[in-house]
């Protein structure tokens, strides 16, 4: 394979990989290309990135090669992430779902359903104004009761709480779903 074409391919492969790629892996993928040629291609890319002042370097790490941004750019990169909303995590969404359907509900009740401690999640949701404390429950300890906010309705495009999907619709949707096989179960109820 011509050197420039090989380097372009190597670049693509390193670009999409989400972990360091070993020379062995590259040899396997680029069937027919010499190991020596691959190593040379990698070295060339490495020095080109450095010399050309590119936005990434090719570093050798954990038994493989990985494209990484140069250290000097770290501050800007952080700002990119800071300005952006994060994807809501599973525990957060699950907790929100329970609160939405079962409000007003105490932390203990949510934990009884989720089977795990929801402390951190509740503070995130409170901070993001998706839930609020609506009252205290009249039981020993007088725990807080949580409910959803108008920001919650806005987020989910709901006119009001009665517009939440009903039990029947929910059952339909859950039945229609192929059960995804979660490799990692965070529950401890079985």
């Amino acid at each position, binding site marked *: 394979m011509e050197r420039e074409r090989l380097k372009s391919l190597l670049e693509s492969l390193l670009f999409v990989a989400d972990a360091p790629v070993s020379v062995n892996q590259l040899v396997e993928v680029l069937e027919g290309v010499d190991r020596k040629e691959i190593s040379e291609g990698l070295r060339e890319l490495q020095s080109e990135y450095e010399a050309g002042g590119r936005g990434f370097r090719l570093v050798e790490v954990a038994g493989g090669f990985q494209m990484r941004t140069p250290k000097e750019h770290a501050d800007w990169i952080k700002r990119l992430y800071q300005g952006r909303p994060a994807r809501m995590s599973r525990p957060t969404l699950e907790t929100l779902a329970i609160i939405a359907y079962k409000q007003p509900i105490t932390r203990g009740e949510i934990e009884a359903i989720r089977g795990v401690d929801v402390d951190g999640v509740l503070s995130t949701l409170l901070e993001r104004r998706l839930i609020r404390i609506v009252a205290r429950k009249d039981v020993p300890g007088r725990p807080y009761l949580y409910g959803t906010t108008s920001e919650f309705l806005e987020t989910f495009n709901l006119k009001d709480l009665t517009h939440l999907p009903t*039990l029947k619709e929910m059952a339909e949707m859950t039945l229609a779903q192929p059960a995804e096989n979660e490799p990692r179960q965070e529950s401890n*109820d079985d």
Partner: protein
Amino acid sequence: MTTKVQLELFEGPLDLLLHLIKKNEVSITDIPIAIITEQYLATLELMQSLNLDVAGEFIVMAATLMHIKSRMLLPPGDDEEDEEEGDDPREELMRQLLEYQRFKEAAEELERREILKRDVFARSPQPPDESGTVGFEEVSLFDLLSALRRVLDRLPKEDVHEVILERISLREKMQGLLDELHQKGKVVFQLFFESASSRLEVVVTFLAMLELVRIRAIRVTQGERVGPILLELAAPLEEVQNRVAGEKIEGEEHGT
């Protein structure tokens, strides 16, 4: 609920009709209905003889075709019942076919585009650094529902597909739970799911429980942080039963 069409060749009756129209080199706007009907029925027969499940939609279309065919045989003007449908009995079908064909072509166009993860690749998402992020990305109701589903999914799994949803009423389940709690006093949460015969029942039991907690008919307690979760009546049986009876339950079936 319709059975899935196993014959991958045709996606549905409209797809099959378009295929026959193309094969016969005729126009959608002037379908020789007798010939097409005959071939359509022959195809269904073939599908059935190959032991393929023929979905209900295919049968409905067969009936439609035969109806159109019979109306084509009537002299014009003789046909009072369908007058508002226009002169040509094929018109509605024609309109459907043309519209379907439009989207079939649009789908083909979409398929010819550079599809991400098929033709072109972006970087795999890196684990985000959550610190300092502002708000959340858009989440949909479906995400919320999926989350609830995951909660439910962690409960014991059974096959649900043959259970007809309407068979188990939420209200009945709520009454059943109350009776059981009345008889047994405090009951360990998990116990209620052990007797469930299907996953659907688990879902309904779970929702009934949540509903009872919401209207404060039952109480959920946990002695220690990791101890068993216990359920008990929050008030005497009669009182909580009245509370359930007076509660309007979202999504409850009417007339069943």
